[in-house]
């Protein structure tokens, strides 16, 4: 492995005290226990990967280390000294730096101003000009070219991540944690980032690499710790175990299950239901995230969209749901009454045509955690009229709760006391009910246990089969796409790069996804 070149002696590391040591860490949020008794040691000069699927507690762990969250129980030791980290400032003072997937920069400030916030060597009264000058020098040294006088909102995503890396380098951190920071980067940029990570390790720093991609972890790290459901299930040196073993650890029983149920390939003909022509949509950063996508989904057909997160699938689904502006192209829904062009008509018109939508951030846009289960159902215009018949809503809620096996004290419990999985079930139950014609879903089964996930996928397929519902299901989980989709489209950098029929070889899809 390449790491051997830069770090000759692994054995001596084992002897020294860890840079950061986590002992018996617990952290729970209302309704969820995110970390259970986590132990972790990170040594200097080591790239330590933390693997785990979504929701395994990776981010919570690193945010707890960084002082964003306060742990319920457990100790954090830094260089042998017990540390109470209550704020990111504490963490930074102790030499911990976090680079996250979402750039933690302030858009309206310039690069220099953002970095000035971190650089302790400048006093409060020192001028931004001096910081700019300092940055120019350092950028020269590290080979990063970003004008320190640019406002951050003008930067590309990669540039922002580079600014974050630059920050870590400038701070002379003892430990840098990359929280899925490489996930969204194109592979060439990713290599560049790896170079910086190696450079950092060479300087004696420790790196914590949080990822859910096994190959990525294997490629660069020296050591891997696997988390599942908030617990450490294994920690080992790279090369000690096989990729399949790691998969088993990450996914537990699930991986041993057959990758899809109801394998029968359906040949859906029927009429067209969703027609998308040359769709162009901008992302949050102003650039085109969806670049000329054309698609047709027939009645009763499920289109699975696979792709690495951040390749435009989110923007695609949002624009279909009417929540994001379409710059060019159009979307036509064919419903029982006729053809309706819904491009930029807004969510009200689209939802009125019998469209269900499972959004990407359920807590933000799919469900209101301060309201009760009943209220979260009744809020949908299709499920209640002007005068709300609460008795009917209660009956509906009860039937859904038993149908989906939701764990809740009552139908009038506030959603915030539910666990993430149960919360998702409420959302899915509501949206499947209103999806008379079309279902749009983004990662529909995240936070669900494997049994529930299968159940939900089967419900989607059944509804498509029996009621003629069409669906666009986007998932970052390739298995899910393969299990649920009649057709599979692969999206990469905003373009559709491959179409597959159900039952296609997984490797073929993966190849298209990453190239």
């Amino acid at each position, binding site marked *: 492995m390449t790491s051997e070149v830069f770090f000759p002696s692994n054995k001596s590391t084992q002897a020294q005290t860890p840079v950061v040591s986590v002992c018996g860490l617990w952290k729970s949020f*209302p*309704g969820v226990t995110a970390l259970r008794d986590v132990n972790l040691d990170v040594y200097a000069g080591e790239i330590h990967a933390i693997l785990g699927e979504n929701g395994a507690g990776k981010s919570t762990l690193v945010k707890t280390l960084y002082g964003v969250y*306060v742990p319920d129980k457990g100790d954090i030791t830094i260089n042998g000294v017990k540390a*109470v980290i*209550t704020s990111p400032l504490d963490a930074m003072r102790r030499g911990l730096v976090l680079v996250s997937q979402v750039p933690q920069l302030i858009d309206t400030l310039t690069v220099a101003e953002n970095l000035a916030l971190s650089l302790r060597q400048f006093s409060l009264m020192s001028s931004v000009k001096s910081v700019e000058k300092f940055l120019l020098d350092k950028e020269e040294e590290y080979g990063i070219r970003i004008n320190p006088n640019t406002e951050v909102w003008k930067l590309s995503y990669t540039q922002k991540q580079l600014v974050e890396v630059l920050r870590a380098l400038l701070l002379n951190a003892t430990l840098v944690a990359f929280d899925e920071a490489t996930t969204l980067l194109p592979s060439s940029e990713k290599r560049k980032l790896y170079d910086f990570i190696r450079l950092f390790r060479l300087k004696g720093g420790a790196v914590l690499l949080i990822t859910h991609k096994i190959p990525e972890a294997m490629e660069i790290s020296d050591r891997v710790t696997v988390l599942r459901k908030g617990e450490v299930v294994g920690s080992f040196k790279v090369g000690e175990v096989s990729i399949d073993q790691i998969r088993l650890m990450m996914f537990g029983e699930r991986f041993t299950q057959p990758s899809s149920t109801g394998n029968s390939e359906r040949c859906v003909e029927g009429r067209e239901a969703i027609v998308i022509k040359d769709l162009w949509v901008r992302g949050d950063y102003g650039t085109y995230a969806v670049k000329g996508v054309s698609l047709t989904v027939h009645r009763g057909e499920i289109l699975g969209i696979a792709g690495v997160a951040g390749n435009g699938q989110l923007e695609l689904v949002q624009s279909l*749901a*009417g*929540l994001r502006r379409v710059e060019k192209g159009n979307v036509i829904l064919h419903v029982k009454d006729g053809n309706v062009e819904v491009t930029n008509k*807004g*969510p*009200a*018109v*689209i*939802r*009125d045509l019998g469209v269900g*939508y499972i*959004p990407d951030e359920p807590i*933000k*846009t*799919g*469900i*209101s*955690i*301060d*309201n009760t289960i009943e*209220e*979260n159902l*009744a*809020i*949908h*215009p299709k499920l*209640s*009229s*002007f*005068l*709300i018949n*609460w008795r009917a809503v209660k009956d509906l809620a009860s039937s859904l709760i038993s149908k989906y096996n939701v*764990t*809740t*004290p009552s139908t009038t419990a*506030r959603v*915030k*006391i*539910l*666990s993430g999985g149960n919360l998702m079930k409420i959302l899915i139950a509501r949206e499947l009910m209103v999806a008379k014609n079309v279902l749009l879903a983004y990662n529909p089964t995240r936070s669900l246990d494997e049994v529930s996930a299968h159940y939900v996928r089967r419900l989607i397929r059944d509804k498509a089969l029996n009621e003629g519902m069409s669906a666009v299901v986007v998932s970052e989980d390739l298995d899910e796409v393969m299990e649920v989709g009649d057709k599979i489209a692969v999206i990469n950098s905003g373009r559709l790069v491959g179409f597959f029929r159900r039952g296609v070889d997984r490797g073929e899809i993966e190849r298209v996804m990453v190239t």
Partner: protein
Amino acid sequence: MVVVKRVSAYTICDLLRLLSGGKLAVRSSRACFDLYYVGIPILSIGIGLLISAIIFYTVGVPLDLFINEIGAGFQSYQTLRYSVLLLMLSVGLVMSFKASVWNVGAEGQMIWGMLAGGFVGLFIASCAIYVSPSELSSYISVPGVEVLDASPVKPVISVLRMNPLLGQLLMILAAMLAGGLWALIPAFLKAYVGIDEVASTLILNYVAYQVYNHLVAYVMRGLSVQARQFLRTDRLNSALLFESLPGTTVTLQEVILSLLFFVSMLTLYKYTSIGLRLRVAGSNPQLLRSVGIDERKYVLMAMLLSGMLAGAAGVSILANPGIGKLEKIANVVTPPTFNLGYTAILVSWLSMLDLRLVPVYAYVVASLFQGGGLLQSEVNARFPGLSLTGAALTYIPIGSILLVYVVLRVLVDYSVRFRR
């Protein structure tokens, strides 16, 4: 079933510890309706009063006098008038606060209610006209005609032009419409431009005061000599004035209106989709948008409702037999709304944005105000040497109750947990 774990350590001491050091953590609690819901407001009233009592004690107001007079406020039937008005206002404010629309512009909306109600009352439901001095006596016995100015040169009479009940109804509706429309300005700014409504509603109050002054002095200025000279409108025809309940200054109409609003808002809130959507707009507006409801319309709706109710409160003040006219505001510190628009915010907060508790706290706050007033006259009579102003006697208790409440409120939404 999920067992709801409750974190038990919340006391005042914990709060103090929380304020003093970093060793406590605050996090979302799952408490919804528990002791704190009722206990915190009562506790804050208690502590706030204690603080004020101590402040006043330092200059020589005996504690027992303070307690007696504040207590007397609770028994005084005068309290009723302000509780009724506060109920009307606060019910509307709670509706908008529930939607996270922080309408602090009830003052301005009341002013518009007064203006619109006054306009209808003075120029549509009745009108003031000059008559010749010789004819004056012949009008006196005509029903619906009232002499406004019996001057021998240019007498003025007010003539009722419609059924007084219809007139009152029109006044109320016009006031509600005007209050609602004025409230829609900041609502539009918030929903479609993104201007923070707390600042804009507050600023618009001052604009409303000046508009009021302008309209009263130029447009609605009355005909009678006194009205022309003293920058005020004519008096409303007494048939259009609301009816006082015997022995008090509360009017029957405002009692009925406020009960009506209370019940209708409660129904609206609980049993209709508007209420539900307002609630959700307050907790998660993005959800509304995602299910195809324009959440911006519910910002408008929230402001409209509270503005309408504030407008009705405005006209109730105007049509009180003790007032019955609009007069120029000489000092913005003492507007004709008696600052009730701000006091209603206090009521809404104390009632934890729960409509059912609004009448209770409307009464409590009105009693405190009344108690402050009684305290003033009693202190003035008994301790001539003390120089205590009315502002000190009312603002200090109210401010301290509110401040204590704001801090203690944390304990309701969050539980405080001791760490290490």
